[in-house]
Every structure is written in C-alpha cells, then in structure tokens.
C-alpha cells in the first residue's frame, strides 16, 4: 500500500503513532487530578514568564523610575503605573519580579539535574554492583552527609569568587547525597525482580539491564526527586542570595529579598517582600506538587490490575 503521503495522511500517521498515543493517554491520566491540573497551569505560567518575562515586563528591571518632576520614586506603594510599587533604588518591583522568574527557575532545573544526575550514577552503581563498589560509594555518600551545606557554600564561594553558575554547582555537588541513598535502595528492590534476573540470565550486559529494566522502573522516583531537587535548589540558592553569596547583578528573587533587607525597608515595604517571597514559595510548591502528581499516576499504572 503506497498512498501519496499527503500532509493530512502524515499527520494521521503521527497521531496513530504509539508514542503520541502514550503521551496523550498519559497526559489525560495526569490531568485527571484537579490539584495537579491547577499546578500544571501555575507551572506553565512560570515557565512562560521565565522565557518571555523580559519582553512582558513593563519596565527594565534596573531602570530608575521617576515621577513627572524627575524625582526618584523610592519605595512607593503600588499604583496604577507601578503595580507592585517601587523599591528603595526606584526600580519597578513588578518588572523585577517578572525578570526574576528566569534565573530562579533556571537555577532550580540546573540544580535538580545535577542532584539527580550524581545521585543516579552513585545510587544505581552502588545498588546494582554491590560489594566493594557499594561500600566505597556509600562511604562517599556518608561523607557528603557530613558536609554542612551553607557554610561550605560560603567558604567555597568566598574562595572562588561570587558567581551565579558556581553557586548552583556547589549546591548540586552537596545535595545529591539523599538521592543516592534512596535510589540505591530502590535498585536493591528492583534487581531482585524476576524480569531483571531473567534478563541477566539471558546474558544481557549490565548496561542493558540498567537502561532497560532498572531505570524505567524508577521513573516515578526519578521525577519526584528531580522535583524535590529543583525546589530545594531554589530555596537554598535564595538563602545564599539573601546572605549575599549570589551574583547581585542577576535579578533573582533571592537577590530581591536581600536588597529589601539591606535597604532597611523589609518590614515596611510589604509590596516589595511579600510577592517575592510568595513567588519563591509558589514555585517550589508547584514543582513539588507536579512531582507528586507524576508519582501518583505511575503508582496507579503499575498497581492497576486491569487497565
């Protein structure tokens, strides 16, 4: 059968492709929970802001706002021109908030990726190979547990100089420890399953067994820990920024809180601090909830008797 492949035909084929079908049915299941759907919407907005924020913001984030007399608008409360007022330097808070989505979310995703990446390599190797490998890697993990996060970050940053990327890297290099342990225990369980044993006894290579049999069955766990890692990185980096160990020229939300604190208006200028703190919390909550939602459906999927 060789039909001329008209665009409609190709679209039809694409629609029937199992991957598309899988994604479609997966999404439907994912969105069947109201709470999850809500946070999907919030998340979409956040990502949208992160990408298009600079274009949407009414003002430049570092543009000093002045009234018609040319006076600087310092810590003005919200008004029609400045929805969230201005800060002590006369910058528009709303614009800064919109700009701040990008570095904040980028920080989170990068941190989450590093955390899960290292955690997976260490945890899966330790759990799968066992023996000496396990001992060495797990002692390394125990050692990582002994590292106090904030002080170490401060010292390292002080040594290498303050930077946006280096701080994320440091957070990732310390926070993988919890993941590694959980992933290891997960692997220990999965590798006792009979389909894993069967594959091994068929002569499958270790890489094959890990990629085809172990990782797919950790999917829910990986996504959940990626979400947790993302949230945690955002929180910790906001904390570091607040303490002054993040690049102050990148307008992340943490930096906003720091400047608010330093200006001495933190208690009075609520329009400056509350939305910023709220944005951080909302982002972290959103990422957590999305991870939870995913975990819920993967569990439902594997526990279901009949689909």
């Amino acid at each position, binding site marked *: 059968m060789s039909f001329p492949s008209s665009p409609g035909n190709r679209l039809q084929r694409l629609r029937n492709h199992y991957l598309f079908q899988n994604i479609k049915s997966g999404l439907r299941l994912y969105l069947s929970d109201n709470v999850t759907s809500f946070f999907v919407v919030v998340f979409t907005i956040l990502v949208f802001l992160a990408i298009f924020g600079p274009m949407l913001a009414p003002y430049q984030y570092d543009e000093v706002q002045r009234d018609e007399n040319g006076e600087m608008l310092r810590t003005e409360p919200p008004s029609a021109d400045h929805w969230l007022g201005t800060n002590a330097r006369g910058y528009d808070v709303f614009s800064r908030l919109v700009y701040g989505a990008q570095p904040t979310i980028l920080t989170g995703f990068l941190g989450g990726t590093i955390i899960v990446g290292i955690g997976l390599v260490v945890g899966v190797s330790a759990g799968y190979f066992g023996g000496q490998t396990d001992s060495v890697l797990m002692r390394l993990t125990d050692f990582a547990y002994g590292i106090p996060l904030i002080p170490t970050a401060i010292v390292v940053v002080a040594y290498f100089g303050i930077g946006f990327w280096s701080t994320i890297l440091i957070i990732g290099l310390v926070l993988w420890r919890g993941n590694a342990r959980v992933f290891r225990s997960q692997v220990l369980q999965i590798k006792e*399953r009979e*389909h894993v044993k069967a594959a091994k006894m068929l002569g499958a290579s270790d890489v094959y067994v890990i990629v085809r049999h172990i990782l797919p069955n950790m999917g829910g766990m990986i996504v959940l820990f990626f979400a947790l890692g993302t949230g945690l990185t955002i929180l910790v980096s906001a904390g570091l920024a607040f303490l002054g160990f993040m690049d102050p020229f990148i307008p992340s939300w943490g930096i906003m809180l720091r400047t608010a604190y330093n200006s001495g208006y933190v208690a009075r200028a609520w329009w400056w601090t509350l939305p910023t703190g709220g944005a951080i919390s909302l982002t972290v909550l959103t990422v957590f909830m999305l991870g939870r939602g995913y975990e819920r459906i993967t569990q439902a999927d594997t526990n279901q008797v009949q689909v």
Partner: protein
Amino acid sequence: MAHDNPLLEVENLDVTYRTREQDIKAVAGASFSIDPNEYFGLVGESGCGKSTLAQAVIRGLDENGEITGGEIRYKGKEIQDLSSKEFNEQIRWNEISVIPQSAMNSLNPLERISDQAVEVADAHSNWSREKTLEKLRELFDVVGLPESRVTDYPHQFSGGMKQRAIIAMSLLLEPSLVIADEPTTALDVIMQDQFLKYLDDLREIRDFGLLFITHDIAVIFEICDSLAVMHGGQIAEGGTVEDIFDTPRHPYTILLQQAFPDVRYPDRELEEISGIPPTPGPEIDGCTFADRCPWSEPACREGAPPLNSLEDDPGHVTSCIRSDEMEQLAVDYLADRESTEATEVEASADRSTRTTGESVLELENLSRHFDPTSNIVESIRARFFGEEQSPVRAVDGIDLDLSRNEVQGIIGESGCGKSTLLLTLMGQYAPTSGDIRFDGTSVEEFDKSDWKEFRRRVQIIFQDPFNTMNPHFTVRETLMEPLRIHGLHRDEERIRQVLEDVQLNPPEQYLDRKESQLSGGEKQRVAIARALILEPEVVLADEPVSMLDVSTQASILRLLSDLTDEYDVSMLYVSHDLSTVSYVCDRINVMYLGRIVENAPTLELLTDPKHPYTKALLQAIPMPDPHYDREWTQLPGAAGDASDLPQGCRFKDRCPDRMEICDTRPLYVDGDGDSVHKTACHLYYDHEAIADGEAAEEIEEVTSR
C-alpha cells in the same frame, strides 16, 4: 448440615466493596451453616470471595467493604448489626477467634507468649493473670508444646512451634468457633501435616467449631466434616465431604476435583478449567461459573441461581440449575475426554518410555557454601581469634545427571538448598567445589563467549508470575528481549509461533498487552515462551506453578510437559510439591539439607519410596479423598541447620529408623553405578558385601569429607 441449633448461620449474605470505578459484589447471596463442633471447609480459587466472607463474619472487612444484605446469626443471634464495640466485647476471642494466614508473623516478637495471652484475656474477659497462664499451659500441653515454654519469646520457637502456639492462643478464651484463613498455605508439606494433625487431635479434647478457609481441596477433604465450594462470590455447592466427593453436582466442583493432582494416580490427566474467575460487577445476575462451564445453557445467565437442596439429600445443596442432569453429563464428558486423551497419548511419546540420549548437564559433587560472617565483630573474631563459624552448606556434594530430552525433578522442603542449586547452575554463584559439565565441557573452562552461548542454550523459568515481566514492556518486547540480547533476527513470526505454542491464542491479541493486562496463568505462559523462544537445550524451572490456582496449575503443567517433547529440551524442575512434580518428571531427586537422598523414576519413587525422608514427604501429602485414611507423618522437629550439620547422616535426628551406623557414616547418592533407584540410606545398603572390599576406601572417603 441440618441441625437444630447451628453455631453459625450465614444467610443470603451480600458483601460489596465500593471502589472508585464501580461497586464490586464480592459475595453474593451466600448461605451456609456450621454446627457446634463441626469442622467446616470453605474452598475456592483466589478471588472467589472466601476470605471476604470470613472477614464479614469477624468484622474484618476493609474500610470500603460493607455487608449489603443478608444475615449472619451466631448461636441464633444476629450479629451483623452489632457495633464494633459490642462485637469486641461479646464475640471476638470469647466466642469467635481467628488463626491468621501468616501465623509465623502474627506473634509480637518483643513480648513473651504468656504476656500476649494475658493481654488478650485482659481485653476480652475478667480472668486473672494466674488463670490465664494456667489455661495457656494446659493448651500448650494439648498442642504438644512443653508447658514450661509459655514464657518464651516467639523467636525461641521454630516455625512449627509458633504455628502450634498460635492454635493454643486462639483457643485461649474457649471460643465456640475458630476461623482459620489459609493457615497452611505458607507451610511446607511436613509442617502442614503436623498442623493438621494437632487440629484434628483437638477435636476430641475441646469443643469448638472450625471454619477452615483454603484453596486446597485435599486439606478440606481430609480434615473437615462439611464444606462449601465458592466461585465468583456464590456458593456453588455445599454438603458433607463424603456427599461432595462421591456425588458432586456442580460443574465447578466436578472440574476442581479433576484438576487437583493426586499422587496416587500420577498418570491421570489433570483437568483444566478454562478461563479465569470473573471480576464481579455491582450486581450479579446469573451463575458466575457459566462462562467457564462446559454445560452452560442460556438459562444459566438469567438470574442468580438459587441454592437448592437435592431431592434425595436435604443436606446437600447446589446452585446449579442443571444439577439433576449433572451426574450423567459429567460421566459422558469425562469418558469422552478419556478416549481422546488415549489417542493423544498414543500419538505423543509416553513419559515413562521417552528415549533419552547422552547426558547434557552433569553435576559432580557440586557444592556451594556461604560464608556466614556478615558483620565486623564476627569477622574480627574469625580472623584474630580463630573462632571461625562453619559455613552454611546450602548445596553440599550433589551428583546429578540430566540426559537429553529428560525431565528430572528436585524436591525438598524450603531451605534444603534447591534454589541455591539452580542459581549455581545458572552461574550466579560460583561453585565452592565440584564441577558442572554442560554438553561435556566444564563450566570452569568457559570464557565469555562460552557463557553467552550457555545462556542461550540454558533457560530458566521463575516462580513468581507477578513480576516476571517488566511492567513497562509489552508481551512483544518481553519476547523480543532474548533475541535482542543474543543478536538474533527479531522475527515477529517467531514470536507469534511461540505464543501459539504456549497457547496464547490468537497471538495478535496478546502481543501488545502489558503485564497488568494479563492473568497470573497468562503471565506464566509468557515466561515459558520467553524461555523457549531461543530453542534452548535445557530449561530450569523453579516452582513455576506454586503461585497459581489449581485450575491454572493443571494447564501449565500439561503445557510444560508437552513442550519439553515438542522442543526437545531437558528440564530440571524444582519444587517442594511432590504431587505437581510427579506430573511432569521422568525421574525425581529428593533433596535434604544440601544433599540428594534418593533418586528414582517417578512412578517407582511414588509407589516404592525407600529413604525415610521420602516416605515422610509422600505420607504428608493430603489426599483429595475423604474415604482415604491417611496416617499422619511422624517426623519430629524441623529440618536441621545447614551451618551446623550433625556427624554422619543429616537426617538421623528426625529419622524413625535411625541405626547406630547412621551416626558415623553418611551415604551419598552418587553419579556412579547403573542402579535405577538410588537411595542414600543404610537400610538399603548391603553392609556385608561392602565390608570386605571397599570398606577401607569408603571409610577414608568419609573421614576426608
């Protein structure tokens, strides 16, 4: 069943589970009654509603379960509407007590048995501590435990003793009814036998009725007075065990009986019941067995069938609307099957006369020991103070010779080393000593490509059908995997062929299903297909049917038996269940504590067992026949500890025929010699003849081991 004052009456009971999708009626219109002091069995496949029924009686339903109709009367009084507080005060423990399914784990490990008993007595009676302990001692005596041990902690008891302690506990407050939900399912055949023995003995000493729930119809026939057979939430048939055995009137009962393996007739073909038990919906209107029944009529699906007494026997009830004709129908059906089977058997190679070729897998004195030192303290002690612990001798000197196209069984209690043996064969453990030869080459000489080759030619089928497939794989991907790993052509046609061979028809329907869309039996068929797709020469099977229902068991066993012929493979079938092994195997090895104690052709082993252990195993199997008067096995204690083996014969401490020589000279079943029936027991050993010639050599060998 008719009695003036029944102890427990269940009438038209409906139990419904509320789930998010829909309501599920797990028990539909169930009725039965138990007389005082009667042992009553409730039997059916998994998912038939038998446990739900028992939970409804004792208020143990899950939160979403609810009694939606009918009555439960205990001693004439309705109890289904009691509040849980009233139930706790009036009924639980005092009147109805429970022997839980996993008796091993239901004692609190942190509390003395006596304290646990006192706790129960405090909650449900006004007995003093002294009275409770007095009572408990009495009961310990009854179940054959030393009275002095009531103050022990559970871990000080062996498995069998815990089991008996649980029986004693359940009878503590002198209940009139004891409910036992699958109490023997997790037990070895010998432990099950002892459990049943004590339960049976109690009948004469105590007054109580028993509701015994199990899937094992043989156990019911053996120990109960009456029974009810359940299917799909309905009571299919009820009556005394003799009535049901002699004149079953419900097709399910008839087929179930035919499906049940019986070691007395290893040549009998096992019946399989097609289909799986139905998943019940919110309402049941029709006989739930109709879809699986060879004799169903349109009328069977119109309205739930009433549970009626037979005309000639008011105590015998059945819910089959064709029960009058059933006797004749069954006779015709079975006769018909027999004739077709007879021709089939002639056509295919008969099991006992199957020609077997040269040996494909040879084990010579194979051992696998495990080092028990696991913690730092132990290893320091071992290293610096020389207090080395003796290793766990899981597999200890096994000789075995598997010929081409032969099916051999290995049976033994759990912990006898049979699983370790399989894993050692598959190269998961390196042998501590001894040799495995595959096709004439020792595995020690294998290099990487030899191993790969070995893994193509030797396949394994596992026990647990429920995680034999990767939940992310379809059937197609599962079967593709062996081809992919061995770099063979991924032939869709081959996959269809092998699916047909394992009777998953039509293959198209199964190719794209995932694990969650297959039943237990179907999953096990996929596992068999995965093992066969590479056309191996040897298949190792690790209890492949032990987790399946009886109706499915039969068909899988038959499938395995047929496929070994069709694919020309040899099989090593490992199990603890002699009755299923005997249906598949040409030859059976009996394993005890890492050693093979007897090796004989199947029929010979079943009819003329030699080793006392084999005899005990055979004797312990419950017979699915109430007229058969089986004697309980007399095998004291549990299997020994593989890290602390006695001198001489390993079995001597439990052996009824122990002799002096057993203390010093163990015997082995070895690969040498041509005798068909090999036994490692002095009872069958010509000591006179040996004394002259080989004695010196023999003794030397013994001391060196």
